[in-house]
């Protein structure tokens, strides 16, 4: 699926129709966003099957509440993310299997800067695993900024934070990722 942002007018039309109960329009919205919802949930669930289940839950919840969605407020993608995020939290509470850190990990110790050469060599699975080890807020920022293509402002709105807080989270996430990946690279040598 093309990760670039969809035509906002097309999305707005689909949302408008879906709010009136148009199933076909909602199906198109599913097609537009399912990959992104899944990608985010994959960072919060252990197996692809779990991510599929929660993805279905997210879209069912979205359908239930789409009539109350106010298009003058959050962008639809940010609104959908909130549902995804809440569903992920619910899923985690129900099924506590992964050690999802809630506090800042011990990665706050200073790292001068990510070793870009190491990161560039990291394969996608390792990076995904590393993202899963971030705090929930950090991985949310990563998902929204880089997988959902939300702007800093939209990410802040979706997370109920200000832009500076999002910047700080993104900064910490980057450094934490760099640290984990560097360690991983060293382990292999």
């Amino acid at each position: 699926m093309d990760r670039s942002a969809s035509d906002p007018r097309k999305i707005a039309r689909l949302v408008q129709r879906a709010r009136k109960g148009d199933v076909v329009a909602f199906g198109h919205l599913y097609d537009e966003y399912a990959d992104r919802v899944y990608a985010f949930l994959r960072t919060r669930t252990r197996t692809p099957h779990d991510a599929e289940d929660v993805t279905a839950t997210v879209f069912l919840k979205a359908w239930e509440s789409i009539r109350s969605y106010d298009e003058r407020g959050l962008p639809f993608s940010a609104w959908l993310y909130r549902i995804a995020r809440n569903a992920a939290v619910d899923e985690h509470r129900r099924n506590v299997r992964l050690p999802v850190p809630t506090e800042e990990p011990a990665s706050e110790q200073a790292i001068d800067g990510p070793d870009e050469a190491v990161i560039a060599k990291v394969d996608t699975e390792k990076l995904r695993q590393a993202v899963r080890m971030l705090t929930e807020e950090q991985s949310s920022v990563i998902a929204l900024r880089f997988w959902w293509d939300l702007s800093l402002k939209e990410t802040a709105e979706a997370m109920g934070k200000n832009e500076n807080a999002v910047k700080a989270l993104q900064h910490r996430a980057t450094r934490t990722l760099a640290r984990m990946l560097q360690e991983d690279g060293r382990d292999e040598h």
Partner: protein
Amino acid sequence: MSTDNDLMPDSVTEALARSSERMTDDAHARVRHTVMSSIRHDSRARYFASISHRIAATAAAIGLLSSGVAYAADNALPGQALYEIKRAAENALVAILPPGALENSVLVGVAGRRAEEAANLARDGAADDLISDAIGEVRAAVKAAESVAGPLSGEETTRIEERAQDAPVQTREAISNAVNAPDSAPTGGTGASGPSDTSGDGSGTGSGSQGNPDAPGNSGDTTGGAGAR
């Protein structure tokens, strides 16, 4: 270095972009089916509950039925004057149906109607593009039925295909393809004609530009479209 991502080194950004995990096509379809089949009844109920839609649809249905025009339009084919009325009456009926077996059955019936129209057009020697459009309508009607009722059963697809049994072989095959694989691309142009004649019915002449070779009156002069029925 991007403007908004100045906190994120390019290498990390690129690596993150690579790391986004996508659903497999199977998973995408599986979850889609779960979601759509769960919401379909709710949607119909919501639509039904909409006063404006209900009033408009009921008025349209009553108006059409009481005027007798709908009855006259029942046998109309695409391109004919009464055809739009036939479709409007169908839409009005579908709109006021409560969710459930009746609705599913009506939608399958509508798909059968589309199949019969395509068959009749081909049988009557209509232009290729008209037949092609009609087969496209079969495809759309099957998809509409599936969006409400889920994948059609073998019995339902047979019910639709039977409505096209009078069609020339190639048209029948194209309709069958539209019914059984509505998401696949149409094969062989109009699906109602084509240069090859593998059916053995003698209807194909390769003269696709001169109308529908399946239809009597075109290539059917020799062995005849009738033989293809």
